[in-house]
């Protein structure tokens, strides 16, 4: 099958959905040029009214996306770095997420917020975060964090077609990664986890870029430990059933997630697993997350962001007794 880079897969998903539905439009800072290539070239095909370069006004971009979605458009707000979404927290976490319910549940808000996540580039706290736990914490948003070109394209198309606000977060570290992407139209449904590798000793739930660490660890340990790796792909809706089926089989769990540990997705998932499968667990669940510090600039980030050896260690830890 044809291979594309993750960033090309995203770009192609945009192009196809722009083509398919004239209500779809994109807006964001410099998107006609495209800071990360995900929107590059689209303006040549769809024109500046549908690929809108905006002023540096994150709050207005996000709020305008919400507004336009209420009037039947399907805006995609490109927020560039997900860290900049803090600037539009009211617009994204309260307006986009909660408007529908607060007005009685009769409206539709089909908008997508797209942004990059992730560290390992020594850029410091405001260009490195994975702030999706905050988005999960404020009910009303669907949250999508694809780890492959295939999923990036298929999930982005689903996101744009969804009648609810969706957060679509692509990882900087994945942008140049190649993978198979069919030529035909396809979508990937929300709420269906991907079992990336089957195993019987330990369940490793890993997200986005962290799947690299999980797979590297599984490779390293393959002669000793049989590891099942699960990529939830969407964090809301979350395919807890697939995870629980795996947990019931292995009894041991490591969660690898790049967002900050405290009050993060990993703790949430650990608690949900415990609530549902306490008696199936043979050892305490281990979290491998960004440690509870701001992400420093420079090389010190290596002490904060999850490292491959932390995953190996966590897997060994849950195998004890």
């Amino acid at each position: 099958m044809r291979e594309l880079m993750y960033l090309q897969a995203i770009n192609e998903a945009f192009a196809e959905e722009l083509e398919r539905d004239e209500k779809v439009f994109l807006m964001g800072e410099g998107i006609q040029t495209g800071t990360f290539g995900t929107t590059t070239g689209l303006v040549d095909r769809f024109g500046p009214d549908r690929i809108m370069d905006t002023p540096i006004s994150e709050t207005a971009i996000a709020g305008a996306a919400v507004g336009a979605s209420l009037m039947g458009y399907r805006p995609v707000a490109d927020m560039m770095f997900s860290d900049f979404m803090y600037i539009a927290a009211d617009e994204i976490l309260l307006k986009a997420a909660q408007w529908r319910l607060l007005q009685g549940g009769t409206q539709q808000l089909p908008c997508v917020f797209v942004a990059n996540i992730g560290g390992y580039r020594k850029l410091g706290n405001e260009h490195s975060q994975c702030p999706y736990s905050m988005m999960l914490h404020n009910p009303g948003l669907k949250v999508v964090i694809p780890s492959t070109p295939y999923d990036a394209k298929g999930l982005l198309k689903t996101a744009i077609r969804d009648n609810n606000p969706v957060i679509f977060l692509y990882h900087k570290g994945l942008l140049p990664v190649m993978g198979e992407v069919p030529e035909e139209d396809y979508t990937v449904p929300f709420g269906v986890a991907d079992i990336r590798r089957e195993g019987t000793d330990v369940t490793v739930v890993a997200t986005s870029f962290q799947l690299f660490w999980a797979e590297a660890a599984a490779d390293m340990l393959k002669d000793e430990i049989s590891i099942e790796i699960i990529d939830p792909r969407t964090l809301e809706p979350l395919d807890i059933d697939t995870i629980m089926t795996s947990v019931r089989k292995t009894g041991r769990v490591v969660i690898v997630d790049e967002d900050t540990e405290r009050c993060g997705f990993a703790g949430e998932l650990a608690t949900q697993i415990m609530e549902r499968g306490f008696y199936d667990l043979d050892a305490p669940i281990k979290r491998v997350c960004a440690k509870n510090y701001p992400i420093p600039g420079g090389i010190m980030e290596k002490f904060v962001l999850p490292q491959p050896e932390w995953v190996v260690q966590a897997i060994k830890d849950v195998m004890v007794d």
Partner: protein
Amino acid sequence: MEFGKEDLIKLYVNLVRTRAFDRAAIKWLATGKLLSFYHPAEGGEAPGVGGTTFLRKDDVISPHLRGHGLPHMIGKGVDPKRYMAEHCGKATGFGNGLGGFHSAMDEFGMFGGTGTLGSCFPLSAGWGLAAKKNGTGQVVVCFFGDGTSNRGTWHEAANMAAVWKLPIVWVCENNGVAQYMPIQDAYPLEDLANMASAYGMPSAVVDGQDVVAVAEAVMAAVEMARNGDGPSFIECKTARFSAHGIGNPDKLHGKDRTTEDIAKLRERDPIVLFRTSLLEKGVLTPDDVERIDQEAVAEIDETEKFIDESPFPDDPALLDAALYAE
């Protein structure tokens, strides 16, 4: 826009109905029928009523919190029954009992309200963008208080509206105070309309106690926007006769507003002023005035009956249905 006799009467009727609903809301809050809180419109009805009465049904409005949007809704032609039912927590409300003082009436171009002041600005930019894109001539009229104008969201939305020439009219209801803060301590110039000059946006300052002056200024701006000439700014100098919210002290910087201050404001009651002028001009007779008052009372009674007969929502499943659209 030229206003005929019918137009003037419509404005007057909407003002009277607004005040009747405002008083009802105050009473119903006291008796526990109305839930949460209420911020009375008395003295500040004209900007909302004047700014909405002559809009197209599909024009979009973002109501200001004062009177919880009653002046704007009534002007826009919404029957307030289901809005008031919502505010009383009833299942028959516009928000199916989920919204409280928020609630949307999409078919009247009211997509709903919010609790954070100033979040109306980016949303209005989005509504304006959609209106421009769909090309049907829809206009967005965004109402907000003097205090709310200090939110940074206005700058972003106003700039976006100006640079993209969006069909938006910003209507500032400047009643001189924001909760306990006088506007002269929150903004350095006399007129908030100066804010428009940062974006080369046309602006006007009007007597916000004169409902006709408001309607004229807003409708001129609306015509401009409809013709593709972009956004503008209308500042209405108005008043707040009572305390910020029911149960709140009527203070500025911790000191009581004096009875003289209030009495002076009340001299320029927008309804009294307009009634006097309509009676003088012979547009209304004393009998008309009487009848309009009685009709308003009847409407309130009918609304109260509707609310009282409506059930409270009582099904948690409503939440699941309301969380996500299909």
